[in-house]
């Protein structure tokens, strides 16, 4: 028995040689059918490898079916693939066959070793696939799992490849194999390092850095310089990525703070319930999305578009009511306003919690906002990009409204000189209410944007209120441009500090720096000048 077991592999080798000989004349599929008919796992495994090397177009579906346990073989060496519904197709011709033709078919046996062989074979087969995307994926999979055994196949693939992009990937995969193989000559190593250095990402760095300790001084030196170069480009790209994240965070802050810049900066009202206006906007988005889904499921992707004006109206109306019922009695008493609006924020939070429940509500990203694209070494996600665009659009809209419309003119007149404005016939009380409602409405719009990147929960507003106040104070109260610069610089500073110090510590550092900054310049980055400031 022992002897037999030792002899068996030898026998299979002989058999395989025989098959390889026959492969030239007969069909690879026929050989495979013969091999799969065997009851020995080792035999089946060898057949899988042989099939992979053949490069036959029918090989991939056969291996796939084998992996899924759907490959059937008859005693007279015919291969069938059984579909999920029980029908049979011929493995070679892909024609449906009558069930009785495959009556005596039995499934080909598979164990874990065979499955591993299948996975490896699939990787190799797709290297030669006519589909470019599959070839690219195969090249990447070889790159990430550099196995010297695949070198011959890779070489033939490189020789056949016509697409220059895929060819580069294949060469990189080849370089990865060469570098991770201890038997490679120094000259090959140098060439491989050059190829990988050009790739210049984290994976390439990891592969090259292993050669830094090479016994060959030329290889070690080349590896060291290559790693340095990669580190430099990587840090540049990650810096750029941080700036992008920072801009994205900054535009979120801008959206959250711009309404505050109007109520706090322009009117001098400390609205601690501002965050709750943002939250109301986010919940409005949720409700609008659900309504659209219910009544017009086809348009679900565009439910954000009506949500923007509706959120503006909802938050704006709530703001208007707050101003009429509470804040107008507290003008000139900022500390009291602060306390009253804080109480209001508690009430609003609890009200939302009572209506919608304490758990997060799900607002889905529409398809045009999900996904991402690469720009060089940057990964730009669409939702962040849209929010940046949206924030700037809102900012521009507010500037236009304040500088170009009668309402904006009246707002500025009232805040600059209330009595004079009143004497000129402006209804100052109405302007106050409208300004406050407008600021709150902008907060609602911010909520629509935040619902796309944050959890919609009753606490949504709280997480932004302190940051928003910081932005307004940092930028200089009463100055919209200051808010813009403040929001973006705080966002970028946060994200640049994050990789260095960690997310929480980075935030703390920014807060502490801000507190120190306010000590130095109590009126912010862009203080207003003139007598009116000292009121």
């Amino acid at each position, binding site marked *: 028995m022992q002897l037999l077991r030792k002899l068996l592999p030898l026998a299979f080798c002989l058999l395989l040689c025989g098959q390889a000989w026959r492969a030239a004349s007969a069909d690879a599929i026929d050989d495979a059918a013969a091999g799969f008919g065997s009851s020995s796992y080792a035999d089946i495994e060898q057949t899988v490898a042989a099939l992979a090397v053949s490069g036959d177009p029918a090989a991939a579906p056969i291996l796939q079916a084998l992996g899924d346990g759907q490959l059937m073989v008859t005693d007279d060496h015919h291969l069938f693939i059984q579909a999920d519904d029980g029908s049979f197709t011929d493995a070679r011709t892909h024609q449906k066959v009558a069930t009785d033709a495959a009556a005596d078919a039995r499934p080909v046996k598979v164990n874990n070793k065979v499955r591993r062989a299948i996975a490896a074979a699939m990787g190799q087969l797709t290297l030669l696939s006519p589909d470019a995307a599959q070839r690219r994926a195969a090249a990447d999979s070889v790159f990430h799992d550099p196995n010297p055994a695949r070198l011959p196949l890779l070489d033939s693939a490189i020789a056949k490849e016509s697409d220059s992009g895929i060819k580069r990937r294949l060469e990189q995969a080849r370089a990865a194999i060469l570098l991770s193989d201890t038997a490679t000559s120094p000259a090959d190593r140098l060439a491989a390092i050059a190829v990988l250095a050009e790739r210049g990402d984290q994976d390439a760095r990891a592969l090259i850095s292993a050669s830094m300790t090479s016994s060959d001084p030329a290889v070690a030196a080349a590896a060291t310089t290559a790693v340095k170069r990669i580190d430099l480009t990587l840090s540049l790209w990650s810096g750029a990525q941080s700036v992008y994240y920072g801009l994205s965070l900054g535009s979120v802050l801008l959206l959250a703070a711009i309404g505050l810049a109007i109520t706090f900066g322009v009117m001098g009202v400390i609205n601690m319930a501002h965050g709750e206006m943002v939250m109301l906007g986010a919940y409005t988005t949720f409700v609008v999305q659900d309504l659209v889904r219910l009544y017009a499921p086809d348009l679900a992707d565009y439910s954000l578009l009506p949500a923007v004006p509706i959120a503006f109206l909802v938050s704006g109306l709530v703001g208007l009511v707050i101003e009429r019922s509470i804040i107008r009695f507290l003008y000139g008493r900022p500390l009291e306003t602060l306390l009253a609006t804080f*109480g209001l924020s508690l009430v*609003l939070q609890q009200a939302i919690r009572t209506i919608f429940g304490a758990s997060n509500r799900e607002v889905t990203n529409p398809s045009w906002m999900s996904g991402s694209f690469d720009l060089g070494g940057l990964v730009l996600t669409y939702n962040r990009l849209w929010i940046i665009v949206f924030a700037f659009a809102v900012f521009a809209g507010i500037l236009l409204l304040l500088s170009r419309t009668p309402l*904006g003119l009246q707002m500025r007149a009232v805040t600059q000189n*209330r009595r004079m404005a009143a004497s000129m016939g402006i209804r100052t009380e109405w302007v106050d209410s409208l300004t406050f409602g407008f600021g709150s409405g902008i907060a609602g719009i911010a909520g629509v944007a935040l619902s796309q990147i944050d959890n919609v929960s009753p606490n949504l507003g709280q997480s932004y209120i302190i940051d928003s106040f*910081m932005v307004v104070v940092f930028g200089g109260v*009463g100055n*919209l441009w200051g808010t813009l610069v403040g929001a973006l610089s705080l966002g970028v500073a946060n994200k640049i500090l994050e990789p260095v110090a960690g997310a929480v510590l980075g935030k703390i550092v920014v*807060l502490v720096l801000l507190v120190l900054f306010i000590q130095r310049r109590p009126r912010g980055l862009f203080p*207003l000048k003139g007598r009116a400031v000292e009121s």
Partner: protein
Amino acid sequence: MILRYIQRLPGKADYILPALLLAAALLIGGLSLLPETASLHVSGYVVSLFGKYLCYALLALSVDLVWGYAGILSLGHGAFFALGGYAMGMYLMRQIGARGVYGNALLPDFMVFLNWHDLPWYWYGFDHFIFAVVMMALVPGLLAFAFGYLAFRSRVSGVYLSIITQALTYALMLAFFRNDMGFGGNNGLTDFKDLLGANLQSDGTHAGLMLASAILLCVFYLLCRALIRSRFGKVLVAVRDAESRTRFLGYRVERYKLTVFVFSAVMAGFAGALYVPQVGIINPSEFAPANSIEAVIWVAVGGRGSLVGAIIGAILVNFAKTVFTGAFPELWLFALGGLFVLVTLFLPRGFVGLWAQLRSRWADHQTKKREGISKGDASERRGEMPEGKLEVGE
């Protein structure tokens, strides 16, 4: 020196409240020590609850001192309270010794859990009670000094100060949530065993702690009372009402503000230190900005600028909170929020000032009736709104 002030004070009405508090504390404490079968027995829970109220009252007193008398609305006093609490918590952690879950005599449980091998340097000395007591005052005091020195020197005041004090406590909260700060991270410090050798689970210790809180509250009340009646206190009120004018009269406003701010922070620190053993835990959520604002509302409810008011407000609101959260938990935030709004709108001087407010309203009404004045004041007030704050770049 303190005695001299006390001797100088006219009237005995101000002593009624501390006397009442002490009497209540003694009564509750004494009743809790009765055997459980006695009909007048008070449970340890009630004792701890009352002790908690007293600590909150001390915190409210410290907020009132800076807000009511110096016009500094600090939305970060919870930070000083929590720092004092952490100082006490660290001492209590060290007292656990080898009785922790891991039985490590050198390190608190959470450090063992984090695989630390040495005690961080800032934990040194917390085995000694005296050192811990010094830290309860020193840490909040130093933070208040550094913060106040920078803020008052550059004349940050009003809402700006409120907002950056809020940012301060927010930053501290984030910091203490981190595990590698060495203060137990998210879970904070808990599982305390004993304080000065007394078992923290026993009724006697509860009663003792509650009594200590009452005594400390009375002592600080009397100190504050002496402070505001002194020359120093008069200057403080002047700073509150007309800061620039006081400065022009030659007073170094920032020094007065800094002194009272630091003193108030130390007070809050002691309040936190007594709070921790009574509730049995200190964690970073004590730093939450909302807690600090809640302390401000206690003062507003009781009566800003009245020491008695602050104490009454703290006890009243927290009692209401206990009742509400027990009976209708979902309504508490409505009630608290409503309280904020109603008190600021209708009770600018709090419950304590309610009587005076009603009387003056009545007197106003009488004069108006006689002189026939009805309108005109309302619009004057609107002029106080900060003006000229809009700049639109074109």
